[in-house]
């Protein structure tokens, strides 16, 4: 233990970990909650820390470990260190543990920062830990690779080369998402909103692979250099574990277009819902902090199309089961939304979608644009939301509809919504 603490003080890993930690904590604390895609969602907060920990901190710590491992050769003390009563494997494990403990300390600080940001937004407390465990284990594997490379190739360029190598590995796998080998070097960079939950079994299997592979890798320098105290048969234990866990990871299959490290969350017993007039909006319970915005949006939609038949008045956040033809999917792409954005999402979903295979119809009045665009523009204008500019002729048609008597306008909108849903042309706008 005392040797470990001395190595932690002596090695360069502490400085590198501190540098990574400052960058990581600053990045997590300076993120803008209004535009962030993770502050408010526990899954995402965990993923964010994991991916930063592995890609940025892990790569740098691997380089630092390689540098530390080359110290004995650089200082020409390798002959001396080879004669100590401690075997090569134990020496490598010591260097690895000293660097890994530093990275764990920083990792905990980053997780605390991310969870604190999320707790400030979310109304539920449900920290997600399994991606963090995998990330910690993966940094262990990266550091072990650094120790191994630094011991076997004690050149001054080995350390930065290790850092660059890890960056290249992650960039390469980012562009080859279907490659199974990427599961053995996990840096999970996926969007897990509230419709997903971590696949704990696979994540823990991944952590087991990383831990066992790290320990087996650390025995490699002693085996290659034929150290006087060789690792012995004990090295078979992590090797067998690594082969078994790695093999299992490569064997697992995820359904097409589904993430490997996550599964769809089960339907909640009670979604968080609000009702305003004839409009109802339901969110996942973990998103109940968005209920005030959902209420305001529902009120705006009710004012615009509430009494009109043909439009959809029941909105369910993506992933929640729809409850009939009047029910529409409500996409929520980030954990913090203002009521305006939520209103626009609901207004987009209120018009029935065309049946599959139905080609959009074009009105002469809309200047070549699909007729549904005019219906959407009228709905947005009634809700006092901005509408895209599709040209002067389209704008004139829109003005004409908005200037029509309320009863005519309502009748046209209802008929038009029904027509869009039934794949019929929208009737000519009222004059």
């Amino acid at each position: 233990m005392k040797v470990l603490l001395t190595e932690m003080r002596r090695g360069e890993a502490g400085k590198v970990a501190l540098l990574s930690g400052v960058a990581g904590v600053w990045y997590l604390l300076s993120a803008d909650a209004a535009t962030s895609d993770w502050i408010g969602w526990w899954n995402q907060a965990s993923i964010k820390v994991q991916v930063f920990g592995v890609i940025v901190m892990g790569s740098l710590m691997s380089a630092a470990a390689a540098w530390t491992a080359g110290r004995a050769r650089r200082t020409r003390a390798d002959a001396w260190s080879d004669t100590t009563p401690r075997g090569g494997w134990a020496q490598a494990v010591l260097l690895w543990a000293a660097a890994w403990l530093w990275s764990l300390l920083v990792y905990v600080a980053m997780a605390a920062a991310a969870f604190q940001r999320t707790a400030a937004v979310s109304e539920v407390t449900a920290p997600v830990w399994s991606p963090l465990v995998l990330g910690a284990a993966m940094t262990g594997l990266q550091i072990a690779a650094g120790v191994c490379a630094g011991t076997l190739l004690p050149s001054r360029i080995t350390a930065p080369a290790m850092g660059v190598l890890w960056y290249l590995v992650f960039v390469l796998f980012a562009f080859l998402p279907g490659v199974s080998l990427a599961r053995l070097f996990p840096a999970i960079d996926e969007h897990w909103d509230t419709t997903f939950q971590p696949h704990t079994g696979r994540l823990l299997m991944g952590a087991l692979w990383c831990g066992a592979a790290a320990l087996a890798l650390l025995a490699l320098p002693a085996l290659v250099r034929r150290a006087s105290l060789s690792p012995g048969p004990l090295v078979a234990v992590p090797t067998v574990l690594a082969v078994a866990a790695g093999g299992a990871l490569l064997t697992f299959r995820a359904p097409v277009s589904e993430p490997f490290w996550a599964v769809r969350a089960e339907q909640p017993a009670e979604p968080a819902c609000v009702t305003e007039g004839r409009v109802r909006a339901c969110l996942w319970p973990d998103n109940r902090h968005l209920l005030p915005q959902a209420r305001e949006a529902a009120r705006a939609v009710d004012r615009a199309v509430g009494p009109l038949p043909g439009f959809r008045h029941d909105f369910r956040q993506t992933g929640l089961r729809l409850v009939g033809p009047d029910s529409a999917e409500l996409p929520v792409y980030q954990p913090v939304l203002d009521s305006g954005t939520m209103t626009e999402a609901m207004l987009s979903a209120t018009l029935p979608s065309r049946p599959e295979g139905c080609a959009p119809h074009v009105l002469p009045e809309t200047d070549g644009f699909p007729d549904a665009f005019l219906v959407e523009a009228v709905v947005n204008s009634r809700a006092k939301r901005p509408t895209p500019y599709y040209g002067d002729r389209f704008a004139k048609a829109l003005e004409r509809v908005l200037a029509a008597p309320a009863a005519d306008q309502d009748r046209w909108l209802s008929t038009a919504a029904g027509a869009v849903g039934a794949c019929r042309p929208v009737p000519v706008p009222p004059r």
Partner: protein
Amino acid sequence: MNPVLAFARSRNLPRAVAGALVLALATGVFAGTRVEIPDFRYLVDYGIPVAAVAPVAHAVVLGTTLHSPMADLEHTAAQPMALFRRLHLLALTLLAAALSALPMLFGLPADVAAASVRNAVGYLGLAGISARFFGSGLAWLLPLGTFGPTLLLGVAPDNTPEWWAWSIHAPSAAGALTTAALLWLVAFLLPTSPPRADDRAEA
């Protein structure tokens, strides 16, 4: 022996220059290629030319020459070594700038070459600062430590570079140029310190 040549040899400069030259030639071969910048979860559409990334490698390779194998002797030398150290950094910078511009022979546009030279200056400044604060052996730490987050977090969802990711800004960005110049200037002006224990211990 000529003292300049002796200094260059003591710093393993010929080997580093050869390595950097190979890098520059490789950059020239891939002069027309762009590196797509991946970003956490965002499908950003942002790429930078390979030539603008290569200066990080130049800084890492040339930064290895900041290590002195006889730091103790140099510290107690009658001739002040601070001047030599600054001339060394200046020479490295000119070399890195020339190597960064070399791919122009392979058809690299002038504005990209300008960004490449700017990045070479900035990253060498970072290497100098890193060597001063973390030890000459860790000169690579700050260039790589800043390049990683730049590569992975440096682009905002609206496909524009973050303000702090200066090395992927457009060649004409005044802020990026100022940052690079400031980094180099800090490295140039930093006072020499006594050799660190790590440097003294190294063979």
